[in-house]
């Protein structure tokens, strides 16, 4: 396939280099997600144990910018929804709407990252930094690790949108990108719920 595959001509032809079966890619992505899941579970576990062992009054929970975090959560869910809508239009063969929704999902993902950065700045405004308190350390660690994974996801969305694909068909590429993106949305929802329960 040559040229930008988001262009209408590229989208009308389904082509990938022969050799590797397309089902290999989603399997590889699911196995990768297993590793990422265990990474976040290790952080959750460390946090639960650290909170349980905490005895000092100096280690009181920090006050988080809940309104901003809720808005960010809504943005990420909207991004996941836009990605799914985009895939639906792709399956229906509506390339114009597919492009619009794919870009919308990417922009919403970037908006989520900007919102998370703003939450960090709000905490810093209150004098809360990475090393201020175990709760603050874990908050920065959770959000930072999630943001790094999300930056990778945004890079993936942009690569799919802008670069020609050689070994993947467009359906496989959008499918594995969507699996990764929805997984990150669920991870963020888990972090958010954990933060609420730990209040």
């Amino acid at each position: 396939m040559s040229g930008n595959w988001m262009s209408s001509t590229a989208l009308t032809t389904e082509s990938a280099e022969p050799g590797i079966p397309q089902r290999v890619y989603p399997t590889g992505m699911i196995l990768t997600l297993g590793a990422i899941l265990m990474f976040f579970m290790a952080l959750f576990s460390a946090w639960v144990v650290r909170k349980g062992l905490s005895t000092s009054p100096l280690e009181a929970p920090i006050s988080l910018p809940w309104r901003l975090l809720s808005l960010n959560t809504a943005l990420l869910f909207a991004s996941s929804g836009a990605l799914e809508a985009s895939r639906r239009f792709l399956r229906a063969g509506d390339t114009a709407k597919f492009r619009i929704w794919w870009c919308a999902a990417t922009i919403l993902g970037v908006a989520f990252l900007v919102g998370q950065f703003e939450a960090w700045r709000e905490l810093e405004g209150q004098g809360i930094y990475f090393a201020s308190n175990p709760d603050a350390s874990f908050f920065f660690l959770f959000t930072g690790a999630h943001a790094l994974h999300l930056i990778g996801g945004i890079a993936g969305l942009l690569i799919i949108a802008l670069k020609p694909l050689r070994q993947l068909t467009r359906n496989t590429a959008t499918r594995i990108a969507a699996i990764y993106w929805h997984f990150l949305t669920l991870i963020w929802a888990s972090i958010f719920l954990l933060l609420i329960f730990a209040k």
Partner: protein
Amino acid sequence: MKKLAIIATICIAILAMAAPHAAGQGCAMCYQNAAASGAKGQEALRHGIMILLIPALALFGGIVAAIYRRDNFSQ
């Protein structure tokens, strides 16, 4: 199928034989630290272990189930 059942039985038997060693593991310092952490600390350690154990077991079970299903599908 029969071969898989034999392998599973052997694995379970090996694990059962290893159980007393599993229960006796852990260094003295870790044991004393855990014992001295109080009821709240011990509960937190239990929760921490479960948080690590459940997804790992689910992933392992999922992979085994996927291999088993694919194996049956290809036969």
